[in-house]
């Protein structure tokens, strides 16, 4: 049973999500990884080191859905599974590919129970659906944060395809958030801020604590809508899904759409003025009080304890 994984990449580097997708599906069969980028070589090189990878295929072009659909639909005949992470590219292209092949995809998989049995969350994670997919081929997206990354140390061969990847749409601008914090979706620690921060300047308090902990930064939709944080920091049903070892939620009430994004967190810490906030009730450890007093003290205290990351 052969598997094709579409690689995720950003700024010329392989995204951490891909190692997790490969880790998740390598039990299904030998994995080929497809890298589609303007300059795929460095990305392909990283992908070739992942254990479980038999071969890396490369193609030049953009990652827009219609172009990827055309390329993937020609490659699919060779595979039983075509898989991507449930990131913005995978969500964009995989349902399109599935419909083109007259297949029903299984998306946002959080557990693989067997060759054709998968768990996926519905209702913002308040229910888990177990499905059996008896179709001849399987088009899947994987929630990367739910799986452990494949090890490295492999040296799979790299093969360039000569299919050009073209789209009817044109990418005319990108607006990215410049930040040197870890990748939110796969970070080990995440510090999240809510609308209680009150301004973009105040949100820097969250960033300061995150820096101290070597953590990624998350935000609620309310904080993003208010312009305190960029959209790619949003955590929740409609933002990023995270599964860190530690999530520190500051000034966040814990609306069910936000909770949908943090169910995979191992430990949750909440800082909130309201002892009745749902996130306080759910947290492993909560401190009731004003975040503007607590965060500076917390940073000082972590310094005193000599915490280094």
């Amino acid at each position, binding site marked *: 049973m052969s598997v094709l994984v579409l690689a995720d990449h950003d700024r010329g580097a392989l995204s951490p999500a891909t190692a997790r997708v490969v880790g998740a599906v390598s039990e299904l069969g030998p994995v080929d990884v497809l890298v589609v980028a303007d300059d795929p070589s460095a990305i392909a090189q990283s992908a070739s080191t992942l254990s479980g990878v038999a071969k890396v295929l490369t193609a030049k072009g953009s990652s827009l859905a219609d172009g990827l659909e055309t390329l993937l639909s020609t490659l699919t005949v060779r595979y039983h599974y075509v898989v991507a992470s449930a990131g913005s590219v995978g969500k964009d292209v995989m349902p399109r590919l599935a419909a083109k092949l007259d297949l029903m995809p299984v998306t946002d998989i959080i557990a693989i129970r067997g060759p054709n049995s998968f768990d996926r969350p*519905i209702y913002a994670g*308040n229910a888990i659906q177990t499905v059996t997919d008896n179709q001849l081929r399987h088009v899947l997206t994987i929630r990367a944060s739910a799986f452990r990354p494949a090890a490295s140390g492999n040296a799979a061969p790299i093969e360039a395809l000569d299919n050009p990847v073209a789209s009817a749409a044109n990418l005319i601008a*990108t*607006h990215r958030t410049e930040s040197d914090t870890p990748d939110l979706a796969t970070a080990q620690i995440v510090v999240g801020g809510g609308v209680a921060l009150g301004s973009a300047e105040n949100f820097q308090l969250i960033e300061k604590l995150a820096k101290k902990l070597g953590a990624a930064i998350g935000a609620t939709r309310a904080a993003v809508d208010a312009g305190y944080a960029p959209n790619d920091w949003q955590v929740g049903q409609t933002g990023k899904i995270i599964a860190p070892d530690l999530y520190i939620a500051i000034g966040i009430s814990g609306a069910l759409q936000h909770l949908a994004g943090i169910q995979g967190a191992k430990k949750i810490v909440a800082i909130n003025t309201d002892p009745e906030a749902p996130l306080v009730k759910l947290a492993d450890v909560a401190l009731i009080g004003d975040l503007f007093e607590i965060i500076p003290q917390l940073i000082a205290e972590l310094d005193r304890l000599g915490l280094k990351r």
Partner: protein
Amino acid sequence: MKILVAIKRVVDHNVRIRVRPDGTGVETSGVRLSMNPFCKHAVEAAVQLSEAGHGDEVVVVSIGPKTANDVILTALAMGAHRGILIETDAALETLAIAKLLAKVVAEENPDIVLLGKQAVDDDSNHVGQMLAALTNRPQATFASEIKVVGQGVEVTREVDSGRETLSLPLPAIVTADLRLNTPRNAALPMVMKARSKPLAARPAAEFGVDLAPRLVVEKISPPPERVAGKTVDSVAELAAFIAADVSNMEAL
């Protein structure tokens, strides 16, 4: 220009759902249902385009039981011109929904089809992309801005790394994210007026589409419960907890 908007009636996003103890599904009887929030943003976008002179007609379509009429009426009250209900009592998979919508696209030939990016019940995030494949149209998913420019549209999308803007020729498929706009609450006169707007109900069977499910849902279970935690009294205790947790983390 003609705009088609697909809207779904779902369990209201404020309802805390309950999984049936026998694993057969989620309790939906006696629960408030309303228009999927993302679809509201799609309707609002279509109405705004029409008000700006870009859409002569905004047609809304919903697939579901007879009661799905109420979300069509909501969309008509928001300013859509005409509604189509494709009636079925079956819970259809997204592929079947996309195939039915493709038939409507073939009949109506809209320049833009707007959909929500995802339905908050099944959380699939499929139908817009599937419809784009079936109708062979370019797509811009997760839109936070739509501008008509010349003969095409420029759509800003929310993506993992921030935002990006695509330019697409028409006809095209666009799916709406929540920051696209602020959906209006229709005033009472508009609600009254909506009742006199054309609304056609047609049985799903009429479209000659294979609606049989492809996947077998074995069971629906509640998510694992978290064990209740504790409240600490001081920043020092909190810091000690965090420091201990961090030092126990296995290095990645």
